[in-house]
Each structure stands twice: as structure tokens, then as C-alpha cells.
């Protein structure tokens, strides 16, 4: 795990994986993917980072406590459901907004926010577990 090659190449892999995870998460509504898979990919990236440079390094790179990220995910997932209160419809009724940005139309919706919440929960929880185990001393 401590090889020079791995340590050098790891940040690159991690960066690519993180970008890929976001891509997978966002395309999930129409193609294979989604918050669960994206979150797992991102968590694997954090595990790799932790293995290459140590858990402390990975935590510093993350800057926020991973469990706090998970909490934030649950929070925005719940919040996305609450938004339907403003339209007078039952909890978690989806709302769609289409943003016109020049030539393209970007669809935004509460299910997307929800999926991002799922992404954060899975990413945060599993990174937290993986990093905690990596940082653990032997018995």
C-alpha cells in the first residue's frame, strides 16, 4: 500500500472517480446510475485516498467530517420532500423547474435534490466507516 507509484497516482485516480461519481449520480434519472451508485463510487475514492496517504490525510482533504456530510444528505433529502408543502400537495410530491440557459434547457427537480441527498448519505457514511477503520491502530 505504501508504494511510491500508488501514492503518486492515487490522487489522480481519486479525482477521476469523484468526477465520475457525480456524473453517475446526475445522469441516474435517465440512464443507469443514481445516488446510491454515485455515493458508493465516491466512497471508494475516499477509501483509496485513505489507503494511499493515511486516514488523516484523507480527512484533511475532505475538510468536512464525513458523517456531517451524511447528515446533510438526510437533511436535504427530507427538505426536498417538504418543498411540496408550498404547492399544497402531499409530502414528497415532485416539483419540476426548467431553467433556460441559452441553447439548452436544464431540468431541475426535487427528485434530483433527493437523489443528491442519497448520494451524500451513502458517500458520507461509508467514507466515515472506511476512514475510521483505516485510521484504527492494530490491537
Amino acid at each position, binding site marked *: 500500500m505504501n508504494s511510491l507509484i500508488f501514492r503518486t497516482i492515487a490522487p489522480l485516480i481519486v479525482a477521476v472517480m469523484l468526477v465520475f461519481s457525480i456524473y453517475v449520480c446526475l445522469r441516474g434519472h*435517465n*440512464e*443507469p446510475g*443514481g445516488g*446510491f451508485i454515485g455515493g*458508493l463510487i465516491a466512497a471508494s475514492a475516499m477509501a483509496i485516498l485513505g489507503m494511499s496517504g493515511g486516514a488523516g490525510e484523507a480527512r484533511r482533504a475532505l475538510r468536512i467530517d464525513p458523517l456531517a456530510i451524511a447528515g446533510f444528505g438526510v437533511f436535504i433529502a427530507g427538505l426536498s420532500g417538504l418543498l411540496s408543502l408550498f404547492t399544497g400537495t402531499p409530502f414528497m410530491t415532485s416539483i419540476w423547474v426548467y431553467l433556460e440557459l441559452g441553447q439548452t434547457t436544464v431540468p431541475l427537480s426535487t427528485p434530483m435534490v433527493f437523489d443528491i441527498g442519497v448520494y451524500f448519505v*451513502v458517500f458520507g*457514511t*461509508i467514507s466515515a*466507516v472506511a476512514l475510521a*477503520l483505516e485510521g484504527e491502530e492494530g*490491537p
Partner: protein
Amino acid sequence: MDYVLAILVGCFVALGVYLLLSRSVIRMLIGMTILGNGVNLLIFTAGRLTREIAPIVPAGLDQPDGPIANPLPQALILTAIVIGFAMFSFLLVLAFRAYQSLDADNTDTMRVAEPVNEPNPPLSY
């Protein structure tokens, strides 16, 4: 081909149960994972198998143009996999902690909560 998978599911469950009945905590943990996989496959197979056609509506269409795989069991299993993994990591850490504090990975020697020959509660008010 369904029946082949049914038998495979049986193998998963049998091995999972066998390992769960072990007294070694680590084997129980592995058994838990395998049992979980078996149950996921059980749900998947019970929702009928369709080869290679993902439940995705082609772009530009409102309905899929032909038979597709049953999406409902897939949605159930997807969350089950992730929850199963969270459960697995929790159990793993629990076993690890138990091993550290009790110095035992055999359930027969883990008797802190239920000591052998515990006396009766006192017979008074």
C-alpha cells in the same frame, strides 16, 4: 433457466445459514453477507428473469418498445444492497470491538451479558 437460479439461491441460503450457526464471529459475519446476497437473488428471481434488457425507456419514447426487465424488484434490491453493506460494516466493527475487549471471537466464551450460573433475583421486597 429460472430453476437453475432457484437452486443457486438455495445454495446461497444454505451456506449462509450454515456459517451463521458457527460459533466463530467472523464466520457468522460472512454468513450474514452470503445470506443477504441469497435473499437479494431470491427477490430478483421471484420477479422473473429477463435477459439483458434493462428497465430503461429509450430516449425520445414515452413507453419502452418491447418487454423489459421487471423494475420493481430491482428498486427493492438496490436499497437492500446498500443497507446490507451498512449492516455488514456495523457488524464487522462490532465483532472487531468484541474481539478487542473480550479477546474472544467464539460466541461460547462471550458471556459478559449473560454469565453462567447467575443467581436468582432476591426474594424480598
